């Protein structure tokens, strides 16, 4: 086995386990930064592109390390995200968070660099377990409950994925991570499992639920990692599947119902992650090299921009213990650097020209225009604009540039500022110089033309959206954020459905109890009647004493014995 055979994800996982085991904070802080740097070195190391790490396991040919142009942008962005999160958490790390953060990144990178479905799922499940540990490490009863809910949904999705992988592996001893027929049983199960992890409406609540219960550092680690790996799986297995366009657009539109009323800034970010995943899913459904390039560009920009968003929101959370928009005041006065970097994150998420998000959206818009379905293109661009506006512009402005009296925390500590500045650099670099992103994409995919041609068009979207939003704000039609949480689908199973279950369980218990009472009463009556009948002078005694009266009883007894024997 050569170093090239080792999946860089394994390196991160090993570093995470070491970090979790070590009681010394400085060692954990160094590992949090050094391990991603080492993974980057392995990624661009001597092994180069190609298939490595072929092993045989239980009769299956597995490829634990496949490094190609499709995986490169995803893996690079995930490792960069881990590096930024490690730097962000240098000052404040717990053993569980340090370890779980690195293991999460390692699982995600390992899954992206896997060449077969079995390795992909194995690494993905490791990432999920680490994600649950991160949520649990947030502290308190609510975080523990959120971690259990997180695990419950992901065990469901994981079961579907394992069943799908088993169905595919049963037919093929080399279950390569590649195009899968969605009509087959295995393909359907894989598609549903990946869609759940990508945040498809219905079982999407895990992200918003869990992210808000993590610590500031844990939230940055978790970020958009799991949805991005799921999108990668969909891109590998189901690119060009039209069903993905419909599911993706629904996933992108669904958060719009909630994001504008969400009070918690990190939950706002979660809705943004979901909308972004939906947009990527829709583009993946178009299929073809250009669509793949668009998804890769969006994933790269999304991971970095959302990392920065969660960092800036986490800085407020670290200072105050919360990041509720309705309780914040003129934060820009006391946190000017964090506020400015939050604006950069917002611009990146909103895909404003010259930022990372723009590069992806420009190519994606061009790709969706190729579908020749005008409605699809309009919905796609509208969803992207509305989600970007609500998450990237409206919420940060209200949180950091409010005019009301409220909490004004101190500026974030230096390590956090440093990590945010580095993330801001990447957000701007990917927009100002998309050449380095293009160099990572598969050969033949040229995004520069779209990036150059779309600046005016996407600038129009943002300029007029900002004008309308500002006009609504001036006439006070745009409502202020109120304290509270948005009702979502989880209210159905955590509220009425739970009450209905409790009611039905109680009703069944009452019915069974009543039946038992009646049965006991009947038994008692029967016993009393029998006792009375067998007393001297009772009914049975008189029957037996009468000549020939015992025959009917003997016939009944014979019938009962016969029935018992026959049964």
């Amino acid at each position, binding site marked *: 086995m050569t170093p090239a055979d080792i999946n860089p994800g394994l390196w991160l996982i090993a570093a995470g386990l070491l970090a979790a085991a070590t009681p010394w904070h400085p060692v954990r802080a160094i590992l949090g930064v050094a391990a991603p740097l080492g993974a980057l070195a392995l990624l661009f190391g001597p092994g180069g592109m190609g298939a490595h790490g072929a092993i045989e396991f239980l009769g299956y040919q597995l490829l634990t390390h496949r490094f190609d142009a499709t995986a490169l942008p995803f893996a690079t962005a995930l490792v960069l995200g881990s590096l930024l999160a490690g730097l962000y958490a240098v000052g*404040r790390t717990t053993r569980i968070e340090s370890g779980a953060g690195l293991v999460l990144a390692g699982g995600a990178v390992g899954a992206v660099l896997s060449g077969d479905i079995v390795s992909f799922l194995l690494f993905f499940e490791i990432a999920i377990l680490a994600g649950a540990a991160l949520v649990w490490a*947030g*502290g308190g009863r*609510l*975080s523990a409950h959120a971690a259990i809910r997180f695990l419950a949904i992901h065990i469901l999705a994981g079961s579907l994925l394992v069943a799908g992988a088993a169905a595919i592996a049963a037919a093929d001893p080399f279950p390569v991570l590649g195009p899968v027929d969605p009509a087959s049983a295995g393909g359907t199960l894989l598609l549903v499992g990946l869609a759940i992890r990508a945040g498809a409406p219905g079982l999407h609540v895990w992200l918003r639920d869990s992210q*808000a*219960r993590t610590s500031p550092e844990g939230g940055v680690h978790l970020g958009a990692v799991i949805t991005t790996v799921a999108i990668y799986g969909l891109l590998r297995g189901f690119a060009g599947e039209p069903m993905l366009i419909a599911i993706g657009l629904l996933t992108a539109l669904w958060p*719009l*119902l909630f994001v*504008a*009323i969400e*009070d918690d800034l990190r939950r706002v970010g979660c809705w943004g992650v979901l909308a972004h995943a939906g947009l990527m899913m829709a583009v993946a459904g178009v299929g073809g090299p250009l669509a793949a390039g668009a998804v890769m560009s969006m994933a790269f920009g999304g991971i970095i921009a959302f990392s920065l968003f969660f960092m800036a929101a986490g800085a407020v959370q670290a*200072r*105050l*213990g*919360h990041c*509720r928009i309705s*309780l914040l*005041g003129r934060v*820009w*006065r*006391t946190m*000017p650097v964090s*506020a400015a970097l939050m604006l950069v994150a917002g611009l990146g998420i909103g895909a404003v020209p010259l930022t990372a998000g723009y590069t992806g959206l420009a190519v994606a818009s061009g790709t969706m*225009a190729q579908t*020749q379905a*005008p409605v699809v*293109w309009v919905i796609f*661009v*509208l969803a992207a604009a*509305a989600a970007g*506006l609500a998450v990237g512009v409206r919420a940060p402005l209200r949180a950091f*540039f409010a*005019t*009301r*009296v409220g*909490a*004004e*925390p*101190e500026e974030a500590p230096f390590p956090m500022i440093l990590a945010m500045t580095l993330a801001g650099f990447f957000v701007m670099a990917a927009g100002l110089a998309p050449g380095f992103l293009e160099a990572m994409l598969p050969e033949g995919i040229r995004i520069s033309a779209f990036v150059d041609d779309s600046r*005016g068009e*996407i*600038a*129009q*979207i*943002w*300029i*007029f*959206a*900002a*004008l*309308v939003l*500002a006009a*609504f704000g001036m006439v006070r039609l745009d409502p202020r954020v*109120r*304290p*509270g*949480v*948005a*009702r979502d689908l989880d209210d159905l199973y955590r509220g009425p459905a739970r009450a209905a279950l409790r009611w039905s369980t109680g009703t069944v218990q009452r019915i069974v109890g009543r039946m038992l009472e009646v049965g006991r009463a009947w038994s008692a009556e029967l016993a009393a009647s029998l006792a009375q009948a067998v007393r001297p002078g009772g009914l049975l005694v008189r029957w037996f004493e009468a000549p020939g009266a015992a025959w009917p009883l003997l016939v009944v007894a014979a019938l009962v014995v016969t029935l018992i024997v026959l049964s």
Partner: protein
Amino acid sequence: MQNERPLDEIPADFRLPAGIFTTADLTPEDLPDPADVQPDHPGARLLGWAAGRGGRIAVFGLLLLVGSGLVLLEVMFRPAAITHVSEIPGIHAAIGMTAALAVVLLARVGQWLLLRRDANPMPPRTAPSRALPVRPATPAPAAPGTLRPTIAPTAGGGAR
């Protein structure tokens, strides 16, 4: 101006002695000018200007000018034959306006339909030992002719 101390320097527990001043004794000139309490950092000043009325009007005007120019250019250089909806001049501007309208409408409808009180609010979640020091909130300047209320900082969220 009698009181030139920045608001940040006034102790949080400061109270006016009873019976010394009444609202009628104070004039708007006695209250600190909000401009005096702006931070000295140049970046913060820039952000403050952008967040103020003048900055907003300037940004609004600039956006309107640039946006109109872009649409005008698109109309002037429109393709001879439009083959896709994305080539219609002004379609992107219309989508942008629709998106903003949708966000505002959904915010209004959502607050009416979907917002509920949080049974498990966030602030108590973070253990006090892990929370970083909190800076007391700066009270807003009072309206002219009124006494500025003295607000004691509260743990976790500051004063509102």
